[in-house]
């Protein structure tokens, strides 16, 4: 167990900037990987995690080069090896499981060929033995019908299945060390929980060491024995998983853990100010100085070394770590309680809304109707109160964004009505809506990179809605822009910046400011925080909540992340395959009895705590289309009671706390089943 298989020593990696300066993105990184151990590397986007993991395979991305240090695999330096020697090690001794298996499998080659290729390269098996091995491997990663699977092309598998194939491919050479770069990011919660479970099983079964790179402390907590926390290209904290997650003694890790919304706690998590410094911008002092609330003057000029603390078996890079040892007990408690300021008036009503993506047939086009018996979204009835935050949750394909687009008028409804203020029916055609309705409903998108015009300055971006809806100009326009920026906590000097000169969190703030510029009554938020790092996510969530309390805006908040939803929403609607499963006040949806699908989702949530394991109840199969009749969840339901689920649409039942559940199982019975 104590044999070290790979050891990184004082590694620095960098690139030459356009001005010819050498800029390092990894600085003095040292760590050891022991046999049979799983090490989690965690950090925000851009902290150098992937660069470090790839260097551990002797691979340096184009444009980068090692500045100093070594990566010793069984005491040989990978960075000095020729590509011949590396070919012998890669795949055979060290194997990689990539972030996005969908893009990492070669599209023109069949699954079987790609696994066979690894076998041919790294084993001496003959053809029949290899064929047998392929099915064995596919079986091991729990893919259904391995024989036919081998003849499929990568695009014919679902995301979770592709990730399993990547695992099978990596195991083909019986490696000593497996590198996993964000292997579950981008997968649905239930699929992610299944893949993690598989990885844990494989680590135990084969005794392979693993390096697990992720920005998600929840996933890291599930698999790691030891955790390395990176910040701005440096290791800031390293130690046993339980210690790091429960008693972090570095201010960054502490803040990071506090900024993760948790299922067990309602209310908004604390946010950390600022964002990670760009590579090359730190010249002296601690790299976390700007964001640290424990910083002392000494930190500004002097950079702390990685210090080993014997009694905790932990390495930490901070002058002040002792302070935190005392503070740690309130990690779970301090959280901002949010006020529910919803009023009794209903601003938006969705009545029997169905939406279809089916292409219109020629005749239907003439008659301007859609005749799809099995539309993507069906029978949605939601009344939204003024000042309320209602969340739509569900996995990918559940129709969340589709509903938002329909409310915004970007997508025609097939049936049903969308009513706004005093039961006035909103046209499902954007062009038919009056300007005031257009102003009143604004949309914020998932990815600010795509929604902000890269050729416009922040000033131009914000002036558009102000000119359009309020005809402002000159001094008044400028004053309003500055006001808006102030609202989203950005200084006046941001006006002249272009989106590319902003960080992810700042961009999303500009997008929020643009939505608020229209003084809307309703803001539709489509996964607005999922592209952001947790510390930034917490800041954006807090900002949204603050603005709402000040201005009385109503939010329709779409997310796949149940913990985020819990933090921000007053009411939650759970969707599966475009059909509502459960709706109710958020504190009740998160309590049992729940709809079986909500139960599955709640079970799959990963908490940043090694002692809370996800419960895997349903299979992680992907359904392409909603079922024709019966309950929408029949295909995966672990509590299915029989034919009635396949044939009849279940009735709504109202529980004692006011949450409505749509299931054939009696609500009291559900309560006792879910004890």
């Amino acid at each position, binding site marked *: 167990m104590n044999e070290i298989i790979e050891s990184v020593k004082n590694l620095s990696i960098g690139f030459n900037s356009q001005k010819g300066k050498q800029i390092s993105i990894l600085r003095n990184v040292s760590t050891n990987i022991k046999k049979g151990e799983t090490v989690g590397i965690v950090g925000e986007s851009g902290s150098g995690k992937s660069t470090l993991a*790839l260097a551990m*395979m002797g*691979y340096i991305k*184009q444009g980068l080069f090692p500045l100093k240090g070594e990566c010793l695999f069984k005491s040989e330096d990978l960075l000095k090896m020729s*590509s011949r020697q*590396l*070919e*012998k*090690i*890669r*795949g*055979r001794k060290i*194997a*990689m499981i*990539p*972030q*996005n298996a969908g*893009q*990492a*499998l*070669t*599209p*023109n*080659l069949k699954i079987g060929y790609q696994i066979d*290729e*690894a076998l041919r*390269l*790294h084993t001496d098996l003959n053809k029949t033995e290899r064929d047998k091995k392929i099915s064995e491997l596919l079986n091991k990663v729990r893919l259904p019908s391995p024989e036919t699977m081998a003849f499929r*092309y990568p*695009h*014919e598998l679902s995301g979770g299945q592709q990730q399993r194939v*990547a695992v099978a*491919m990596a195991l083909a*050479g019986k490696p000593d060390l497996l590198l996993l770069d964000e292997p579950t990011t981008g997968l649905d919660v239930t699929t992610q929980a299944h893949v993690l479970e598989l990885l844990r099983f494989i680590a135990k079964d084969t005794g392979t060491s693993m390096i697990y790179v992720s920005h998600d402390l929840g996933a890291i907590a599930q698999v790691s024995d030891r955790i390395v926390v990176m910040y701005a290209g440096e290791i800031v904290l390293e130690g046993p998983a339980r210690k790091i997650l429960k008693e972090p003694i570095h201010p960054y890790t502490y803040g990071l853990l506090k900024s993760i919304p948790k299922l067990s706690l309602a209310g908004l998590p604390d946010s950390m100010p600022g964002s990670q410094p760009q590579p090359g911008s730190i010249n002296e002092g601690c790299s976390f100085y700007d964001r640290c609330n424990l910083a002392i003057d000494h930190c500004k000029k002097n950079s702390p070394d990685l210090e080993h603390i014997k009694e905790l078996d932990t390495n930490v890079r901070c002058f002040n770590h002792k302070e935190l040892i005392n503070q740690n007990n309130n990690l779970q408690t301090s959280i901002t309680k949010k006020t529910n300021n919803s009023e009794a008036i209903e601003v938006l009503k969705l009545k029997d809304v169905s939406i279809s993506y089916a292409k219109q047939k020629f005749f239907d086009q003439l008659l301007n109707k859609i005749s799809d018996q099995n539309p993507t979204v069906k029978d949605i009835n939601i009344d939204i109160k003024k000042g309320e935050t209602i969340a739509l949750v569900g996995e990918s394909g559940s129709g969340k964004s589709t509903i938002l687009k329909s409310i915004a008028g970007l997508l025609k409804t097939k049936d049903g009505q969308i009513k706004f203020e005093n039961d006035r029916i909103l046209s499902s055609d954007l062009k038919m809506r009056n300007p005031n309705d257009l102003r009143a409903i604004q949309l914020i998108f998932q990815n600010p990179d795509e929604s902000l015009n890269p050729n416009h300055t922040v000033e131009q971006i914000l002036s558009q809605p102000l000119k359009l809806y309020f005809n402002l100009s000159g001094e008044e326009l400028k004053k309003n822009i500055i006001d808006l920026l102030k609202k989203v906590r950005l200084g006046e000097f941001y006006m002249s910046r272009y989106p590319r000169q902003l960080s992810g969190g700042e961009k999303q703030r500009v997008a929020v400011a643009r939505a608020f510029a229209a003084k809307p009554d309703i803001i539709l938020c489509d996964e607005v925080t999922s592209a952001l790092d947790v510390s930034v996510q917490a800041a954006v969530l807090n900002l949204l909540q603050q603005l709402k309390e000040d201005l009385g805006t109503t939010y329709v908040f779409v997310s796949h992340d149940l913990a985020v939803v819990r933090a921000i929403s007053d009411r939650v609607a759970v969707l599966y395959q475009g059909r509502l499963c459960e709706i109710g006040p958020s504190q009740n949806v998160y309590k049992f009895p729940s709809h079986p699908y909500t139960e599955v989702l709640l079970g799959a949530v990963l908490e940043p705590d090694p002692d809370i394991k996800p419960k895997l109840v349903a299979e992680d199969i992907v359904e392409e289309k909603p079922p024709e009749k019966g309950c929408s969840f029949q295909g995966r339901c672990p509590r299915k009671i029989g034919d009635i689920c396949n044939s009849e649409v279940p009735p709504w039942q109202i529980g004692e706390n006011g949450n409505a559940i749509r299931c054939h199982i009696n609500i009291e019975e559900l309560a006792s089943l879910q004890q």
Partner: protein
Amino acid sequence: MLLLILKRIGLGLITLFIVSLITFVGVEVLPGDACTTYLEREAYGAALDACIKRLGLDVPAYERYLDWASNVARGDFGYSLSGEMPINEVLGPRVKNSLVLASVSILIGIPLAIVLGIITALWRDKLPDIMISTITIFSMTIPEFISATLLILIVAIWLGWLPGIVIIPSDATFYELLSNIILPVVAISMIMTAHMARMVRSSVIQVMASDYVQMAILKGVPYWKMVFRHVLPNALLPAINVVALTIAWLLGGVVVTEVVFNYPGLGRLVIESISNRDLPVVQALAIILASIYVGINLIADLMTLMLNPRLKSLQIRK
């Protein structure tokens, strides 16, 4: 799959029909008709009457269109005015000449372009790339008529190695043709190869940066094996459509090059028939060129469909 092919063919036929309508209507709405245009100042009296009779201009336009279209569908384009012979006889040798010129250029140009594109991509920013890229960009930027004229000046006039102007007897053997077309082929290939090589280069570079190539490297796949199995099939797929367009462009006659070298191909025929105001020939050419474009693009689309597993299984599932 079969349905899709039929659908595509149907669409192609509709395109051709529209082209035929447009050319026909275009000729109709021009002031005067084919005879007055052709005869110019002599358009009176007996000559005009004879011409009108011969072309059947005395019947209503829609009847003439139907007549003409059904003849074209049978492969008969009618009579040329200037040569006073069947258009098919005018076209025959021209099509053959263009075909020879195009196929030789294609046989040389495309493989060369692919090889150069791959070399420049794999040795990106190294010496081979810098050298080849400079040459390709250079030959892309010089206009055809300059490079063709320069070739004649240097190879034919100064060095006297090859004839500068092509004089082909109509019964020339393939071999005779070959020695005559070396210079035009070089002139054409230069531009065509340069364009395609640039495209192949960027396509290969893009695939080389993809996640799956990085994955193949990390899997320990040897370099050349990776290039051939993981990179090239994916990089060359998008090239098929560009190659098709190039071929269509070549077959349609490379007007400038043909004029400079006095090469009797379709491109020069276009110029000649326009300057002769020979409207029936112009109409015939419009249809032929349109069919070439439609046909070759159809083949290219089907090939892409066949080679791309993604599209293939999409079709089968439908």
